[in-house]
């Protein structure tokens, strides 16, 4: 009846996951009770859960990422403590638990923190920057978000029901095959990634179509803000790379569920094929994450330097070059696995070449700052911190791209330090910069600068205190993923890294404090004009938060830095006054399709993990029925009457008049 599921699936003998699970459960129940008792449920349902507004969906993506960041961060803290204490002892985490933690940490941080964070920011900002009312497929957008949430839910379920994979974040076979991993851990891993992968693909298709087909009048390709370009590149990579992940995991699942022989040791299966396939997805994935961050830094550096981005066209070229070359370097992830010197040399050189467009970007940002009137607001701090940190990570990356060096350093803590250096220093700093920069746009008030700066400095210093020791430990020969060790020389560095982790944690606490303090002082921090940073692109041309239709009129774009242009012209010619007649606006109706679909996907995923076949069929039928019902509806749009549009728009125009007279002077 319930497949492999019985009471032994609940880890009663392991206090850590059980207590963690209980705490999370109590927290969720507490929030739910509060929502229901306070009567917020109808609001939550109609304004958020069923919303197809790209801004709301973007906010929900970022919320999901933030919650999962705490989960993945807890895993990190546990690992750092374990390695600090497990010198010539077992530490406090048994090996099978430790293995689950490092696997979950990687999986969560990449798929459920970094991905939703950048996709959330793209969702929130790109339609605004393009000057349009929504993304290309609003309802699909909601489906994509909720499928991502389903994946996150399944990963967290594995904490208390069953186990998570012990195979590392990419589940290499043959270890991940049924004969070596008979439990449900790998199945939790694979199904949660399959489901959230569909969500990511949907988001990718949606954003590519949005950038290529939905741009306001005059928004030629070479007038798009840099963030739109990097969004385009990143989502092209999603469309091209995520199907590879889907196919690869499908093969692994076929091996595990139906006795196929893709990657087994027997009957001619080929393990190296998994390595090639997974990294053919995995390397572009790195750029899927970091390209949007590059876009955010471009926007931030340009805005806070008060200058147009230096070398805009070279930046576009560099972005697209990275987009293409990122597909030609995957083999550097397994130089040591016997491809031979010629192949290794080619991929080594390709990996070094990709540093060239990245270097172009760094110089462009530096030259943008050069001669500018720089304001060191929190987003700018993250951007400058990124440049310093990312260059170090990039250099160690080029070092690892040299095959002979890689033979010495692969699979060591040096590698761990390297990819944390680029992912934290690149993606996470970028996400935080974007969060600080666009928060006022999303919610209508700025974030507290004092706590923001504290958060930056603690995170920045904490990062170096944590990861420089890992570089050194790697040089001293320490391999990654060690549950305990006996080498005295490594010990001090592990202790320093644990201290660094504490500093990083203070950074995270500062960030939470920043949010609390800012919400409390929101009246004082209110952004009335919609342009708190003296911005340059179109998202600042509408109010904060923007009305549901974003713009009363789709703006007319006449050059790069569209909004900056408008401000200058408004000052010279008072264009703001002659507005044409307001018109009715049609907007897509809210739809529970995404939520209902994700509900059935959750049921189906859970049933597949535990081999509950009747429930699988039920879930599948439910998902299909949801789509048919969605396809059957007769009214998918509603009309906002012109008077309402006019009323909303006029309020913002009044606030903006005062600004226009002051800003825009170069």
């Amino acid at each position: 009846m319930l497949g492999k599921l019985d009471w032994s699936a609940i880890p009663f003998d392991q206090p850590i996951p059980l207590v963690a699970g209980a705490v999370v459960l109590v927290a969720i129940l507490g929030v739910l009770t509060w929502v229901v008792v306070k009567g917020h449920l109808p609001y939550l349902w109609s304004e958020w859960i069923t919303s197809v507004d790209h801004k709301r969906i973007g906010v929900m993506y970022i919320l999901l990422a933030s919650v999962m960041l705490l989960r993945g961060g807890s895993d990190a803290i546990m690992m750092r403590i374990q390695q600090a204490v497990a010198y010539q002892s077992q530490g406090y985490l048994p090996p099978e638990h430790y293995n689950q933690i490092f696997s979950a940490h990687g999986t969560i941080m990449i798929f459920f923190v970094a991905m939703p964070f950048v996709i959330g920011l793209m969702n929130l900002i790109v339609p605004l920057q393009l000057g349009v009312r929504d993304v290309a497929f609003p309802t699909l957008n909601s489906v994509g978000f909720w499928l991502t949430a389903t994946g996150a839910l399944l990963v967290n379920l594995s904490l208390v029901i069953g186990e998570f994979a012990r195979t590392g974040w990419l589940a290499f076979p043959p270890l991940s095959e049924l004969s070596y991993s008979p439990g449900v851990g790998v199945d939790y891993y694979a199904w949660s990634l399959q489901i959230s992968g569909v969500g990511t693909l949907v988001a990718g298709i949606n954003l590519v179509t949005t950038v290529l087909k939905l741009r306001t009048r005059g928004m030629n390709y070479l007038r798009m803000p840099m963030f739109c370009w990097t969004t385009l590149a990143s989502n092209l990579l999603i469309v091209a790379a995520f199907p590879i992940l889907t196919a690869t995991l499908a093969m692994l699942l076929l091996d595990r569920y139906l006795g196929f022989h893709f990657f087994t040791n027997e009957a001619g299966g080929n393990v190296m094929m998994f390595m090639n396939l997974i990294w053919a997805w995995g390397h572009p994935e790195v750029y899927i994450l970091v390209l949007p961050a590059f876009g955010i830094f471009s926007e931030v550096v340009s805005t806070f330097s008060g200058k147009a981005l230096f070398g805009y066209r070279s930046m576009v070229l560099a972005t697209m070059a990275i987009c293409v070359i990122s597909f030609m370097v995957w083999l550097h992830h397994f130089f040591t696995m016997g491809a031979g010197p010629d192949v290794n040399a080619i991929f080594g050189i390709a990996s070094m070449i990709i540093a060239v467009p990245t270097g172009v970007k760094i110089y462009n940002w530096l030259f943008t700052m050069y001669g500018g009137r720089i304001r060191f607001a929190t987003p700018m701090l993250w951007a400058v911190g990124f440049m310093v940190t990312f260059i170090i990570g990039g250099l160690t990356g080029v070092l690892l791209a040299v095959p002979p060096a890689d033979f010495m350093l692969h699979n060591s803590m040096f590698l761990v330090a390297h990819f944390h250096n680029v992912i934290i220093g690149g993606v996470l700093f970028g996400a935080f910069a974007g969060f600080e920069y666009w928060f006022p746009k999303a919610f209508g008030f700025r974030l507290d600068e004092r706590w923001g700066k504290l958060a930056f400095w603690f995170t920045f210093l904490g990062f170096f205190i944590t990861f420089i020791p890992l570089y050194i430990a790697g040089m001293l020969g320490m391999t990654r993923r060690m549950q305990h060790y006996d080498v005295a020389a490594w010990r001090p560095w592990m202790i320093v890294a644990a201290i660094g982790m504490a500093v990083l944690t203070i950074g995270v606490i500062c960030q939470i404090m920043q949010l609390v303090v800012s919400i409390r002082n929101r009246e004082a921090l209110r952004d009335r004009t919609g342009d708190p940073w003296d911005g340059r692109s179109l998202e600042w041309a509408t109010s904060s938060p923007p009305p549901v239709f974003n713009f009363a009129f789709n703006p007319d774009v006449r050059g790069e830095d569209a909004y900056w242009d408008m401000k200058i012209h408004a000052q010279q010619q008072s264009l703001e006054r002659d507005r044409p007649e307001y018109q009715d606006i049609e907007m897509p109706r809210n739809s529970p399709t995404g939520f209902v679909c994700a509900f059935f996907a959750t049921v189906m995923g859970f049933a597949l993990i535990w081999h509950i076949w009747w429930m699988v069929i039920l879930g599948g039928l439910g998902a299909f029925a949801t789509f048919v019902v969605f396809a059957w509806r007769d009214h998918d749009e509603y009309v906002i009457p012109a008077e309402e549009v006019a009323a909303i728009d006029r309020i913002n125009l009044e606030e903006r008049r005062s600004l226009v007279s002051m800003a825009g002077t170069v």
Partner: protein
Amino acid sequence: MAMTATAGHAHADPHHIGLVIEHPGPASKRIVTAYGFWIFLLSDIVMFSCFFAAYAVLSGQTAGGPKGSEIFEQRNVAIETVCLLLSSFTCGMASIAADVRNRFWFYLGMTVTCVLGLIFLVIEFREFADLVARGYGPSRSAFLTAFFSLVGCHGLHVSAGVLWLLTMMAQVFAKGFRADVLRRMMCFALFWHALDIVWVGVFSVVYLLGSAA
């Protein structure tokens, strides 16, 4: 389409390339929908390419089991191919009928497409069932694993297509040729033709090359 020539906006063209064609604004829903679906199809073809690659890698790994030339029946494959290619034609007829809003020819075209699709699926299912009965199921060897996955993945797509086809007929029956129904019909036709293209790949790489070897 306007050109940037107004003196007031000369700075819009800093490199003086001149005659920049202004982007006319957001595309129509029909174009956006079809464009998005094209992108989806491209991603689907990337997924198929992984299974093709796996087949190329594993096709020699028979582990003592049968080779391709020992199990492929060219007559069946020929019938399957004819069915699918014909169904692409009838699907095209149904699309034209939908565009001119002719219900009779639409239903006829879709029905024939559906029947041809089902014939294809039945032949494929019987081929699979026969192989499994002879002990040549997907777990026999890596070659058979790759064969069943690649051909089966295409078969699953065709099955989903048949389900979609029936839903489209029901939609036209219930809603008529509404704009959104027509957009979906366009996506369905793209999907069906794409499956045909993938089948041409399967036919050549698996059956033709396999029979020769």
